[in-house]
């Protein structure tokens, strides 16, 4: 137990749980430390303690450290139930909105969510989460500019599913006129913060 802990605001632990719950990927202790304004050591300690608490309480989920970060996941004991859910309960065809967003990312990567929003005219949030969860797109880098937008690109799984060896093997779009408007929207998307973009007319 650290010195910090005696004076620790209980809200910090709750905030830690909240952030980990909504995270799409494992969250690095360094980022958690920064968000919660506590030391990285304390983050690690709190996470371990939370994990132990969940396990002791017999919850169906656990908090684990993977790939250098912490994340919630289903308890391995319950894999048979999760498998049934994955097989039975999931949507099995890509929507045209998702396919269009995926196509934009494939051809214009890397690009940020607000750039995609500028092209699509609507906020692609929900669609992008699905694509990300399915492993077709991933965060590739952070923009250097102000706001440090997360940039997205396609994954090797995407190439595999599409049956191509590299992204250069996609059919060319250079000869098509609509591309010009996309280039313009891309530039616009860079200048606009995400919540300005989504379809102001709605």
């Amino acid at each position, binding site marked *: 137990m650290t010195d910090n802990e005696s004076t620790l605001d209980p809200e910090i632990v709750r905030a830690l749980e*909240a952030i980990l*719950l*909504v*995270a*799409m*990927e494992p969250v690095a202790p360094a980022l958690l430390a920064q968000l919660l304004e506590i030391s990285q050591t304390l983050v690690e300690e709190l996470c371990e303690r939370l994990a132990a608490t969940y396990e002791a309480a017999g919850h169906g989920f656990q908090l684990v450290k993977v790939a250098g970060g912490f*994340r*919630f*996941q*289903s308890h391995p004991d319950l*894999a048979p139930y*999760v*498998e049934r*859910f*994955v*097989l039975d309960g*999931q*949507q*099995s*065809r*890509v929507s*045209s909105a*998702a*396919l*269009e*967003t*995926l*196509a*934009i990312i*494939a*051809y214009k990567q890397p690009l940020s969510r607000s750039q995609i929003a500028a*092209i*699509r*005219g609507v906020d692609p949030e929900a669609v992008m*989460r699905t694509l990300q*969860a*399915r*492993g*077709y797109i991933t965060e590739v880098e952070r923009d250097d500019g102000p706001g440090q937008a997360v940039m997205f690109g396609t994954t090797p799984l*995407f190439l595999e*599913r*599409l*049956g*191509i060896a590299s992204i250069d*093997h*996609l*059919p060319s*779009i250079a000869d*098509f006129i*609509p*591309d010009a*408007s*996309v280039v313009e929207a891309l530039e*616009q998307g860079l200048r*606009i913060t995400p919540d*300005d973009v989504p*379809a*102001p*007319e709605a």
Partner: protein
Amino acid sequence: MMKYAVSTPTFDGPFDLLLHLILREEVDIHEISLSNIVTAYLEEVSRMPTVDLDLATEFLLIAATLIELKTRRLLPGKDDGDLDEELALWEERDLLLARLLDCKTFKDVASVFSDLVSRADLSFPRMAGPEERFASLMPDLLEGVSPLRLQRAYLRAAAQKPPKVIGLEHVAPIRASVAEALVTVSDRLRIDGKTTFRRLVDGVTDRIEIVVRFLAILELFKQGRVDLGQVERFGEIEVIWLGIEQDGVVTDNYEG
């Protein structure tokens, strides 16, 4: 960035504007001059960052309806007790009232929706999905998607954003007529110098034509090109051409 979005706390949509004007100033179509409504509207518009064409044209439509209601009473021969006309007038008014009430109802509901949304926004859903060990079980969303289909999806997405189509079907006749009426009326006035509204609409049978000529007169009055006089309510409206011919009659307001 998308030009036709106009939304301020006090102004959003023409019916709302009418509601606003009526509820605030208790605008009485019959007792308060229409030019006051128009002036109030223009003030409202000048406070807005951009002008929404939809809203502007819709306002004109409503203004025309109101003016029509009023001119029915003002125009010669329109108030001499034709029961059918009277009933039609009531019907129109009731329709407008019903629409205004509907509009107010849903405006209030929308503010409750807005509260619900703000509350919902405080929570973020978990959407991470199953861990990678279940990935092989997840149905492949991309099954049957070829590179060519992806290219088509891209081109479809890139080509979207169809230019905003403005519903002209109900607006066009009014818009065209007012612009025309401005010319017609100005031409007549330039020759006659001084006349009456009755004479300006002499021989015009189409009600909407009469309304737009009235609008044209109001516009000319606003531009300071004519002077108006009416000795008594429901009496003749005198129209006097002031002959100021700086840069032609401004008709831009009525051209989309």
